């Protein structure tokens, strides 16, 4: 395989927490606590996990919107983690984002055409060629030319999200981070936007980092999926492999919890839902982040952090017990020796 377009290595993002106490040791939220992944040209990597597990923070760190505490973010081989000012702005040409809420993403006082033209303006595209480019972009995302001079409040949610996507594509980026990009849309509109994203990828060779809590949506669009839990990647695998052979106990629980739009299948489910809540990322256990809820937990799991190991082509897993089942031993067996 060719070199990845985007690589994240050992990424940590820790946020300090205000306590009011002057001399106490400053607690931190370990929002992202050691994440690695690659994204190749034209590929979609899905990131799934429960709220607060660090999906958005990972995306934001790549975008320069969250501080990188440790680790590397390589874009086309170049570390872009610390970029600011003009260098950061130049990167926007290659790296764009579509957030969840198309309402707050658009300026209510700007027409659609003005919103889409904004990045072109900032990057100094001449006025004359801007208009043509806006028309082209509107057509690309399926907006009608007659909608040029409309304001966001005159559009449906799906149409607004198309405007946001058109604006993100204005500078011909190579990577688009989609953070819950279809989550706020009605199902009938959601499928239109997913179809659009798939078509744009085919036509333009885009890479997507597709962040979502909706497993059915991620399965549909992603080539590979990384499952995050409390700031770490519990498991990563090609999509079909992950659904066919989930290995991490958290992945298994997550897949089992997705309610299927099929009453017969739903009523045939026998497994009891996973108990407990996601722990607070401020009291991160030293060992496995999933230990407090894990049905397979063994002694030592909450003390020793499982490291990701490769268990198949592109299939990575961070779990002591499953590692032992597959390789014959794990760090649990080596403790104290």
């Amino acid at each position, binding site marked *: 395989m060719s070199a990845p377009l985007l690589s994240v290595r050992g990424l940590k993002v820790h946020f300090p927490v205000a306590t009011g106490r002057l001399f106490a040791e400053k607690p931190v939220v370990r929002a992202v606590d050691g994440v690695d992944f690659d994204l190749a040209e034209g590929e979609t990597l899905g990131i799934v996990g*429960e*709220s607060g597990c660090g999906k958005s923070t990972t995306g934001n760190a790549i975008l320069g919107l969250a501080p990188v505490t440790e680790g590397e973010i390589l874009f086309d081989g170049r570390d872009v983690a610390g970029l600011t000012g003009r260098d950061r702005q130049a990167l926007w040409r290659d790296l764009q984002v579509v957030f969840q809420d198309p309402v707050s993403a658009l300026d209510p006082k700007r027409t659609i055409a003005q919103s889409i033209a904004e990045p072109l303006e900032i990057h100094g595209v001449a006025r004359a060629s801007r208009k043509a480019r806006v028309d082209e972009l509107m057509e690309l995302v399926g907006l009608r030319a007659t909608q040029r001079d409309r304001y966001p409040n005159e559009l449906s949610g799906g149409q607004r999200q198309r405007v946001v996507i058109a604006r993100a594509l204005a500078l011909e980026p190579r990577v688009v981070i989609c953070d819950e990009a279809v989550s706020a849309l*009605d199902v009938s509109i959601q499928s239109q936007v997913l179809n659009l994203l798939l078509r744009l990828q085919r036509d333009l060779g885009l890479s997507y980092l597709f962040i979502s809590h909706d497993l059915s949506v991620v*399965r549909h669009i992603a080539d590979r999926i990384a499952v995050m839990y409390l700031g770490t990647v519990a498991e990563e695998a090609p999509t079909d492999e992950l659904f066919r052979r989930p290995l991490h106990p958290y992945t298994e629980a997550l897949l089992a919890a997705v*309610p299927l*739009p099929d009453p017969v299948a739903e009523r045939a489910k026998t497994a*009891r*839902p*996973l108990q407990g*809540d996601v722990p607070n990322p401020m009291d991160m256990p030293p060992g496995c982040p999933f230990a407090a809820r894990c049905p397979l937990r063994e002694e030592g799991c909450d003390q020793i952090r499982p490291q990701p190991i490769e268990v198949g082509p592109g299939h990575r897993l961070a779990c002591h017990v499953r590692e032992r089942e597959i390789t014959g031993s794990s760090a649990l067996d080596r403790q104290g020796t």
Partner: protein
Amino acid sequence: MAEPTLEIHDLSIGVGPHNVVDGVDFDIGRGEIVALVGESGSGKSLTALSIMGLLSGSVRQTGGTATLAGNALDLDNDHAMRKLRGTALSMIFQEPVASLNPLLSVGAQVSESLVVHGRASRAEAWDRAVEMLREVGIPAPEQRARQFPSELSGGMCQRVMIASALIAEPRLLIADEPTTALDVTIQAQILDLMRRLRDETDTSVLIITHDMGVVASVADRVCVMYGGRIVEQAEVHELFSAPRHPYTKLLLATIPRLTGERKSELFSISGMVPDVASWPEGCRFRTRCPLATDRCATRPPLEAAGAGEGHLAACWHSDKVEDLA
């Protein structure tokens, strides 16, 4: 059949000059879970709020009747409705954190309705609240009762909401998107809890959701709303296997399935949900419906369709829906 817990007849709700809920009929049997599904803006929440007597401001009931266990509900009578809320009727909302009082301890909120309605002393109510918290799966409920909402996770706050809704043993629980803000593993716990409740206490539940997975998982019967009207009503298995309204059929076809072909073009319903002000005359799905004919310019009645008992659809061409998509 035993008397239904709730009967809604010809309910209409107006905002300005428009009826955003327009002649809605349905009922909920004892111990039955009915799901109300439909697109954003189709009138689900307003229907629920009106049953609770909670419409306010420019939004008002413009027609229709409701009965609870055979007794007419006087939806406009604030005093009468206030008495029912927290006793026979309870509601939980989508945003658990925003719906709880941040200044009141969890135990105080859960016991509140018993105290307010004079059904228990403060101390008794507190003990019942702790029991209720235990029943909805909150670990260490004695300690949790003394904490404040900000100290609890979203899933726990939702369980607290459910506990406060259930402590009065209501006949009808209305849950508006109770799991939308929650993670799937927590959602599975809450849905499990709702099923258990119904089995153990015979509470009737109206659950509002846009998630067909949630519907398939908990509902006995389903009402599908579009443009302020119920367009289809059926037993849950029948609704999924043999829908008789084009909107239901197409809606089911648009959902990405865990078993579907990945990256394939998803089915989508053309056009968009029209705004209240531009709803077409006659069938409101007309502007997006592949089966529409001239006849659809007249409003289709909600009438028997399909094989199953109680299966209703509002479509002039419901016999052709099978061949769609």
